[in-house]
């Protein structure tokens, strides 16, 4: 699975079963340039159905741009991208998307249920009929919305205005919104950002269980890999000098990161298996000692 541009760490190609699920996402020699600056180029990667994949890398490496590229919101500058068998943007109805963001303003007085419901039919023109006049389809809609709210465990606060929910509660409701149409692919951009450690763990476990139970491929941009480390099938590491994809234990290594950053880097593992990256990455926004 590892296809580094330089070929230096091509030693460990992952031989998945030949009967593996079809590619949900595939990039062939793809490159991205925003405002004339090349973010990444010659990227080859494949995500299969039901896989949980993290996108890591320093700030400004183009992680969010990768997500937007898969949604067709940003064009690739070179190469070929296929999402769910089509050009990016064609099958967005089958993709659940959680953009990188801050929380809802405390004054937003719309219920969590309504937010989830927008994921179901928010793109249909017009307004739903009032409840007494609505038919079977509306009942099915409400059922599905309730079901997905139960799935993410948000039943207790889905009736509250979203602005009054905590960060973790809002994130669960937004994940429910992304899931409500039974997507084949979830694109999550730093969903754990600004959550406390306990909530990070529970939201990570939720994403993992959804990934398994709903058989949806998850591509998640993460600032810190540790909350999701034990759930991951693959890691995509984006850096200035190249892109590496593979199992986390193969990618988050001193050798690979040293190659990507072009400067000596160590990866330490603590007693609980958490990873700490130590070194002097060449990117100015990356702190001298950080967690990938």
């Amino acid at each position: 699975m590892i296809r580094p541009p330089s070929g230096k760490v091509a030693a460990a190609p992952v031989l998945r079963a030949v009967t593996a699920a079809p590619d949900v996402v595939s990039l062939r020699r793809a490159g991205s340039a925003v405002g004339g600056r090349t973010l990444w180029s010659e990227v080859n990667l494949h995500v299969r159905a039901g896989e949980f994949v993290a996108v890591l890398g320093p700030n400004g490496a183009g992680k969010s741009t990768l997500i937007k590229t898969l949604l067709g919101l940003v064009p690739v500058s070179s190469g070929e991208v296929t999402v769910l068998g089509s050009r990016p943007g064609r099958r967005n109805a089958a993709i659940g998307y959680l953009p990188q963001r801050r929380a809802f303003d405390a004054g937003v007085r719309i219920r969590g249920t309504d937010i989830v419901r927008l994921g179901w039919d928010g793109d249909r023109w017009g307004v739903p009929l009032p409840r007494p006049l609505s038919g079977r389809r509306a009942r099915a809609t409400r059922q599905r919305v309730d079901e997905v709210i139960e799935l993410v465990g948000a039943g207790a606060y889905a009736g509250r205005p979203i602005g009054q929910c905590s960060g973790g509660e809002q994130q669960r409701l937004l994940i429910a919104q992304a899931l409500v149409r039974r997507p084949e692919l979830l694109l999550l951009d730093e969903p754990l950002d600004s959550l406390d450690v306990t909530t990070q763990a529970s939201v990570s476990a939720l994403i993992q269980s959804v990934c398994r139970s709903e058989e949806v491929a998850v591509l998640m941009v993460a600032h810190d890999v540790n909350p999701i480390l034990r759930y991951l099938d693959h890691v995509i590491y984006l850096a200035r000098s190249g892109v590496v994809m593979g199992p986390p234990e193969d990618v988050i290594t001193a050798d690979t990161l040293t190659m990507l950053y072009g400067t000596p880097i160590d990866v330490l593992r603590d007693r609980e298996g958490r990873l700490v990256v130590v070194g002097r990455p060449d990117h100015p926004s990356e702190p001298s000692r950080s967690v990938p």
Partner: protein
Amino acid sequence: MTWNLVADVQQMLSYHFMLNALRAGTIVAVVAGAIGYVMVLRGQSFAGHTLATIGFPGAAGATWLGIGVAVGYFGFCIAGALVIALLPGARRPGSGLGGSGEESAGIGTVQALALASGFLFVSLYKGFLSGLNNLLFGTITGVSDAQVLILLVAGVGCLVVLVALGRPLLFATIDPDVARARGIPVRLLDVAFLVLLGIVTAGCSQVTGSLLVFALLVAPAAAAARLSARPAAAVVLSVGLALLVTWAGETIAFFSPYPIGFWVTTLAFAVYLLAIAHRARLERPGRQTS
């Protein structure tokens, strides 16, 4: 005034100007209540206020040129909506969730220009001074049959478009990034909504005057949002409160020597205060919020 309610109302309705005022007020209240709710949700109150002040030079200019006041209101407000929509960064999508989009200083500049040119038109049209107050603060006697008809057409048009935009407009308001990824034309909806807002403020201005449009556009909607977090229920509430405020305000204005704008605004403010007080009582510690 006899304090016999039935007789008083009969007396009031026997005046044609009063009938027209109530007709126009009813149309305006329904539309302003509905559109106002979306405006409050989108955090575009400042844009709405600016559109209202843009109606003033429109009306003043139309009077100066001797064409219908309604034409001036609608023409300027719609043009103003397009200008605001085209201002860079007027509402930067993705700047926040829940319609907390930033409004640029550009809108404020447009507002100042609108007020200044309105005043210019007033001074160009000599002997217009009594009309100035009416343009700014509204008048109960000023609505003609033709104006009622125009308001009706514009109001029904606005409501039909608002209902048609419905869910995608709500989606684009609450979560523009995800809405765009789902193929909703977020930018187009931004422009469409501003034009709707322009039409509504133009209509509103003809009842409450340019400066007091907010009484109907903001107060009932803000009160309704505090009373219910269900979008459909809140829209209905907002319309109901706007109607209540308008009818009561017009009735009191008829029996009192003071202007209609004052009464409608005062009642709207009272409704808003009551809603805030009700919400504060519900959210006292130890009570389940809804």
